[in-house]
């Protein structure tokens, strides 16, 4: 059977030599290489469950009366979109499992991309020749954020509306052209024309996923062209790749990871409730709720909006920077702008424009690791600031006080983390200490004068 299939393919495509080579493709072994794969497999689950959902969801703001099985909302006048989201949750067999798995997969998708990005950053995997692929990966992260936001904004529940109006305000806050851009997207003043939800729908189910899917293909191709990067040790050099071959080792293992990712997502979707739109209720512009929190990957933007001082300058009667501009547009633009610029910044400052296939350990480049840790601290802080009201409810720390703490901390803590990380990395580099490996043997000698002297035998570094 195998022979027949190979024949069939090779006679038509001549691909046998290529496939044979692909089977020997070496995958360097390291746990941190798996986050990208988890993102890929989450995407597959997203597409699968998403296709199921589109068969039932109706992107329409027309009014209808809910008369499904969920008692507390029966008889309420709601939009067709919200009504169909409730129906596919409660009346369609297996619908809630699909919807919740879809939502969980989105949360894991963005999370695994974010962790993957950190791996790439801290190991210097973005250096030539992989800088091009790093930009593509960053672009996919931006698109994934938009895609996720568009997804949970479609359902026209209270949380959707509260998120969308903030997106509308952020769009309006673009200097000079914000009003025009906002009207182009929404078709009118918020909540916009009835076309808006169809636009959002087509962006969520076609435009963004197709772009992301296309970029995934390019991303994988650009990984395969120079082959994987690898850590030092075990005979790894700049000129070779040492690892598990695609067949039989890696293919089985990676397929296993795919099934495990899907399995965990379906378990989450079946067992742990996420985004209970029936509890939020439908959105009306005159309704709101306290304690609403967005999906996790939007939290940092809420925090940035919240701790921004009430600055809204007026210049000759115009308002160049409406307040949401700072937290909603400037902060994410600076963060992503910095990440996009980083490979060139590092190349310029370090003067190292060479090709690198061997990865750094985070300690090998204390300066870069410290910068990354500082940026991560900043984002974590504004993320926490986005939960300041929940912190108040849980721990009783006054909200106004928290805002001031965060305003100071977002500048002070990253600087402190920068210095601390740099120092730790330098120490680690000196001592070659590793949390999971036995420390290098050390000898304590009593000196003639009564003191002690510690001599560490330098562990033979696993360099090639």
């Amino acid at each position: 059977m195998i022979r027949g299939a190979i024949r069939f393919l090779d006679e038509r495509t001549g691909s046998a030599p290529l496939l044979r080579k692909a089977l020997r493709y070496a995958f360097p072994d390291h746990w941190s290489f798996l986050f990208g794969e988890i993102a890929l497999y989450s995407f597959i689950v997203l597409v699968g469950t998403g296709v199921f959902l589109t068969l039932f969801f109706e992107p329409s703001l027309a009014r209808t009366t809910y008369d499904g099985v969920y008692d507390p909302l029966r008889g309420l006048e709601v939009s067709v979109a919200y009504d169909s989201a409730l129906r596919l949750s409660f009346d369609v067999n297996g619908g809630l499992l699909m919807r919740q798995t879809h939502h969980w997969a989105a949360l894991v998708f963005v999370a695994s991309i974010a962790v993957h990005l950190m791996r790439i950053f801290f190991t210097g995997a973005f250096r030539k020749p992989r800088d091009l692929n790093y930009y593509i990966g960053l672009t996919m992260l931006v698109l994934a954020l938009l895609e996720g936001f568009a997804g949970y904004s479609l359902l026209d529940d209270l949380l959707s509306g509260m998120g969308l109006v903030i997106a509308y305000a952020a769009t309006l806050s673009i200097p000079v052209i914000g009003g025009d851009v906002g009207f182009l997207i929404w078709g009118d003043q918020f909540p916009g024309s009835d076309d808006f939800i169809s636009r959002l729908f087509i962006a969520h189910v076609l435009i963004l996923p197709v772009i992301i899917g296309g970029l995934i293909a390019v991303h994988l191709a650009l990984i395969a062209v120079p082959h994987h990067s690898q850590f030092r040790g075990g005979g790894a050099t700049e000129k070779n790749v040492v690892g598990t071959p695609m067949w039989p080792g890696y293919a089985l293992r990676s397929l296993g990871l795919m099934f495990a990712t899907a399995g965990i997502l379906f378990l989450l979707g079946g067992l742990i409730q996420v985004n209970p739109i029936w509890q939020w209720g439908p959105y009306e512009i005159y309704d709101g709720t306290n304690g609403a929190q967005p999906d996790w990957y939007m939290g940092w933007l809420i925090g940035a909006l919240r701790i921004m001082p009430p600055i809204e300058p007026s210049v000759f009667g115009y308002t160049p920077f409406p307040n949401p501009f700072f937290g909603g547009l400037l902060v994410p633009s600076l963060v992503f702008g910095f990440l996009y610029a980083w490979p060139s910044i590092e190349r310029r400052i370090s003067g190292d424009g060479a090709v690198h296939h061997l990865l750094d350990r985070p300690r090998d480049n204390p300066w870069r690791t410290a910068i990354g840790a500082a940026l991560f601290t900043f984002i974590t802080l504004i993320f926490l600031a986005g939960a300041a009201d929940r912190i108040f409810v849980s721990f009783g720390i006054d909200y106004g006080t928290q805002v001031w703490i965060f305003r100071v901390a977002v500048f002070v803590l990253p600087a402190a983390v920068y210095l601390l990380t740099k120092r730790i990395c330098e120490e680690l580099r000196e001592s070659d200490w590793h949390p999971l490996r036995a420390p290098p043997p050390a000898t304590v000698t009593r000196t003639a004068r009564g003191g002690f002297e510690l001599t560490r035998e330098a562990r033979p570094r696993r360099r090639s």
Partner: protein
Amino acid sequence: MLVLLALAVAAAVMFIVAYALEWSTQVLGLAIGGALMAIAAALILAGKRVAPGKQVTEERPKFPDRRAERELQRDIERGGRGVSRRGVLLGGAAAAGTALGAAFVIPVASLGPKPADRIGASPWRRGTRVVSEEDAQLTPADVEVGTFVTGFPEGADKRELGSPVVLVRLRPEDLELPSDRSDWDADGVLAFSKICTHAGCTINLYRYPLYPPQSPGPALVCPCHYSTFDPATGGERIFGPAGRALPQLPLDLDGAGRLIAAGEFSGAIGPSWWGVRKGT
């Protein structure tokens, strides 16, 4: 491994049964998730058994190839050899491309109207009656001290951003309205846009002092980013990121003692934009 595969079969069959019998989401999730996890375990185990720690060393593909680069450049340049006025032609091609690109992009304008008169607009006019969500006419008696009521312009679309107002009643001695708004209340009832001037969320929290001598004064609060406005002073921002006061709607009473608007909002409703302080 066989045990795991058998487990996968069992769980998958269980999913089919659970689906057919319309069992709960939890059972469905456990069954399908269990089947996937069993297959995952079988695959990972197989990977470990079949190829335990087998490592290969591959040569990395060699690039760049400088010679090929030079030849490619030469071939491209050779194609344009003998063509006169190359610069002008290239300029013309660039112009044609740009113009065509612009022509393709311009239909995007059909997506939305010019914001000109619509942005920040509201249906409230002098004399518009204030009604409840159920279209009942509101009177000052409907608004008690210490709580808020949502009002709408009679006959207008309640889902328009400029429609909903939040009505609160303050004791006369607490009012500190600016002098040009001293008559904007009706029997102590004040009206403000219910849409926050920061990011457009709904003002649906009303903080009212439980013990006035010690508690902070009454305030309208937005739950999204906690912009806080003081109704006593005509909607001035007292906390949070909002850059503008909450627009106030002047109120009056008609002959029958019902609430009506005495004019239009004191400023543009909704989030700020470039021309928010100019009106358009």
